[in-house]
């Protein structure tokens, strides 16, 4: 049996007219508004808020990156380029990027001449990056060199001190001998160029005063290079040179 009293008695329009003056009508409207508002808070306002804060953070991040880039531009525009080239040259001479045999031989010869010792014999030992002589600083690759020097104890001592004040930089590992002859084991190092990871928004570190002073100090340790061709052309200079090897 059809329970409808009349056709459309459950329609919304009928229900509206039936309950519009009732207290329940307004209460239901208010509750609906509150529920919809709560839903809107969770579905619209909070995501909008998240979005706003992420945009705000991004803009702050961008602003700080722009400031860093501008600081980098100021730093690079104020840098003394010839001085930087000189500092780079000194740093590379002190710690070469590859095996610098001529530099090593020049340093030893120069030190021997200035200390008054003669170098009788020398030998190089090479180790690859995985070699047992790997230095503590993993990026440094050692070249071991053994030399035999002749001279008085004072001159030998002078040699041991002076060799540390020459570039490329050397380290004396051990010394064995008597007052006349010393067998010196040394290590020279080279450091291959690593891939420079440059990010424009990272602050560029300037060469600080202590480092600049160290580079200046290293530049005074440069060795006199022996130009074989010139010495051959000029017999006077070759006759005055001290025989080393």
């Amino acid at each position, binding site marked *: 049996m059809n329970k409808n009293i009349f056709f459309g008695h459950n329609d919304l329009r009928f229900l509206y007219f039936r309950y519009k003056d009732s207290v329940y009508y307004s209460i239901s409207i208010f509750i609906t508004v509150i529920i919809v508002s709560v839903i809107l808070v969770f579905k619209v306002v909070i995501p909008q808020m998240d979005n706003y804060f992420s945009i705000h953070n991004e803009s702050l991040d961008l602003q700080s990156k722009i400031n860093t880039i501008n600081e980098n531009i100021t730093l690079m525009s104020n840098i003394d380029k010839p001085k930087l080239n000189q500092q780079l040259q000194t740093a590379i001479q002190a710690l070469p990027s590859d095996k610098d045999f001529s530099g090593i031989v020049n340093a030893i010869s120069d030190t021997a001449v200035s200390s008054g010792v003669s170098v009788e014999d020398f030998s190089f030992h090479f180790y690859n990056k995985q070699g047992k002589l790997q230095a503590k600083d993993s990026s440094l690759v050692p070249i071991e060199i053994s030399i035999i020097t002749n001279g008085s104890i004072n001159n030998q*001592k002078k040699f041991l001190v002076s060799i540390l004040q020459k570039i490329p930089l050397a380290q004396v590992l051990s010394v064995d001998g008597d007052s006349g002859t010393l067998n010196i084991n040394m290590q020279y190092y080279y450091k291959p160029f690593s891939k420079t990871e440059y990010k424009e928004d990272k602050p560029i570190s300037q060469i600080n005063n202590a480092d600049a002073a160290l580079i200046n100090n290293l530049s005074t340790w440069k060795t006199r290079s022996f130009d074989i061709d010139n010495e051959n052309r000029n017999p006077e200079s070759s006759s005055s040179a001290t025989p080393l090897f």
Partner: protein
Amino acid sequence: MSSNINLLDFNTKVKQKKSFKGKRVLRFISIGMLFTVSASSIIFFLLIALSPIPQLRKQKDIASSNLASSQEDIVKLSLVNERITSIKSFIAKRKNFGDEVNFIQGKLTSDVSINAIILQKESVFVTLSSKSLLSLNEFINKISTGEGIERFKSIKIKTISKEEGKNVFVLTVSLET
């Protein structure tokens, strides 16, 4: 049967008053929430729409292109810094054997000579010879006091002998640094 002769019930008025108060509170809450939701939504929409990100991105691109012209110098600078860091730690760690020789030589008297010397990272072996045992004794006394104690962890006399032909005393000392 009701004893009250009034047709209107007083309790109904009180109930009506209560329901009116509740309705007013609900209306206030619903309108307030609707207003808050719409206002905050509009405010956030405007803040998002007016964000400075596009202008900042443009500024960053311009600044980056300006910096790109100095890229070569930046690489040089980073290379210098990288090398100097290694050089600094290397210089700080390496040992100066000249100092050791100087120290030992400073403790010798004129009639004592160094026959042999072995300098290693953590130890020094020195063989001395002298015609006088007193001079060798003086050397041992000198290195085992003052600066010698600070410099060396242990001082050991390895051998002491006399070379009959040359009539000299030979002393071998091991010093651990």
